[in-house]
Each structure stands twice: as C-alpha cells, then as structure tokens.
C-alpha cells in the first residue's frame, strides 16, 4: 500500500490520514441507461494489477476528496490532485 501521499493542500502525509473511497475512473451512466449499465456502475469492480485511479478522502487533514493515481504492484504514487481539479480536467 502506498504509504505516503502528497496532498496538494497539506503536503506529504501518511496513508492513515486518508480513507480510500474507490475507483475514480468510472463514468456515471445516463439516467435512462439500461439496468445492466447501472448494475455494472454500482456493483461491478475490477481488481487491477498496476496503475489505478482512486478517490482518496483526506479525512484527518483538509477533508477534500483527492484523485490519486498509484500502482498496486510497486506502491508508487504518480499523482494526487484535488477532486475539483480532476473533474475540471475531465470535462475538457
């Protein structure tokens, strides 16, 4: 487990200050999408080996949601950005 996360607001912090809130790469289906699409979005998760995008909540720090890109094999952390920034980037 990646043990040090560089929060864009708080600096380098141990993982104990965070709560992992799951896959950040999922895209919410349209309200009229099929039951299968919604079932997959709500329940079905991959267990990836390698690079993953996750929501990390800095519970004991700034209380912001971050999007953290890390490697589940090497424990390397590639980036940690504020959720608002990540959402803005994704819209572009």
């Amino acid at each position, binding site marked *: 487990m990646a043990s040090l996360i560089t929060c864009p*607001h*708080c*600096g*380098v*912090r*141990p993982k*104990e*200050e965070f709560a992992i809130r799951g896959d950040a790469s999922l895209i919410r289906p349209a309200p009229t999408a099929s039951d299968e699409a919604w079932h997959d979005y709500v329940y079905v998760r991959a267990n990836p080996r390698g690079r993953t995008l996750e929501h990390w909540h800095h*519970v*004991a*720090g*700034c*209380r*912001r949601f971050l999007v953290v890109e890390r490697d589940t094999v090497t424990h390397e952390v590639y980036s940690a950005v*504020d959720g608002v920034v990540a959402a803005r980037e994704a819209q572009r």
Partner: protein
Amino acid sequence: MVRDYNNRHALDQKLRGTPKPVNADHLEVGHWQAIATVLAQVGLEAAVQRALSSTPELSLRYCGPGEWLVVSEVDTPIGLMRRLDMLCGTQAHVVDQSDGRVLMRLSGPCARRVLAKGVGVDLHPGAFALGGSTNVLCGHIAINLARTGEDIFELIVSRSFAESLFDDLMTMGRAFDLSAAFSD
C-alpha cells in the same frame, strides 16, 4: 426533575485541584477560549482571507482551501462572532466553536520530540515555519496543529476528544517530564 446546568470545561476533571510545578516542557490548557470556524463561499476564499488577516487580534489556523479556525486572545465568544460577522458578512459561513473545541499549548525544548511520537508531519523549524498551521492526525485523533512560537505549538481538538488527546499527550511526554495545568 430539575437539574442545574453546569458549564464545565472538558478537562475539568483532569486538571482541577492542587497546582503542580511547571516543568520545562509544559502543556497549558486555556480555560475559555474564543474559537470559530470560517468557511469562505466558493470563489471568495482570497477576499475572506484578506479580511481576516487585516485584524491583528485574530489568529488564523489553516484547515483546508477556504477554511480556517479563527482564534482570538482578546474577544469573548460573542465578541468574536460579532467581529467575524462584520469582517465576512455574507462572504463566509461562520460557526462559533468556543465550547466545541479545546485549545492546548505545548511548549518547551522537547515539544517537537513529544509531538513526533504521534504526528506525521515534519516538525523541523525549517519545514514547519513559525506561524504555520495545518490539520493533522495525532495518534488516532484529528487535530489542528499550529506553531505559535520558537518552541510553542498549539493543538485544537474537538471537545469530545480532548480527554483522550490529553491522556495521549501526557503519555507521549512522560519521558520528558511533561507537566500540565490550566492557564489561569
């Protein structure tokens, strides 16, 4: 049944009674401290920070983007709320935390070594500058840590966690003969 309402300090049971000698490393607990949280409206973070910084009596403690704990040494809780209302107006949400938080002041030559047992941030004077502040985990308790002097740190904690944090700090400080008392 009629009960009298007693407004007691969260650490009253721990610190009441015979005064003990103050050692080199000391934990001082303010009896009544005016504290408020300020959360700026989205987009107005810089304006609110400017307004708050313009008043030297107020000490700002950084919590997150656009959010601060404001500590006043001179105001009563009601006075602080009135002052913040005038400074921020509708630009920020202000909530009185004077009874909701407890402020502890840790000072002494070994203050950093005491804190280092429970805190995951770099406390070196070069890394944690004078006047700096941040939310951080101390043991298992979320606190706001601020450096207010050369070897002085202020910890702000939720009232219901104050006793646990106090016990933790006294354990962390036992090796350095840490003493504790109310400030007045």
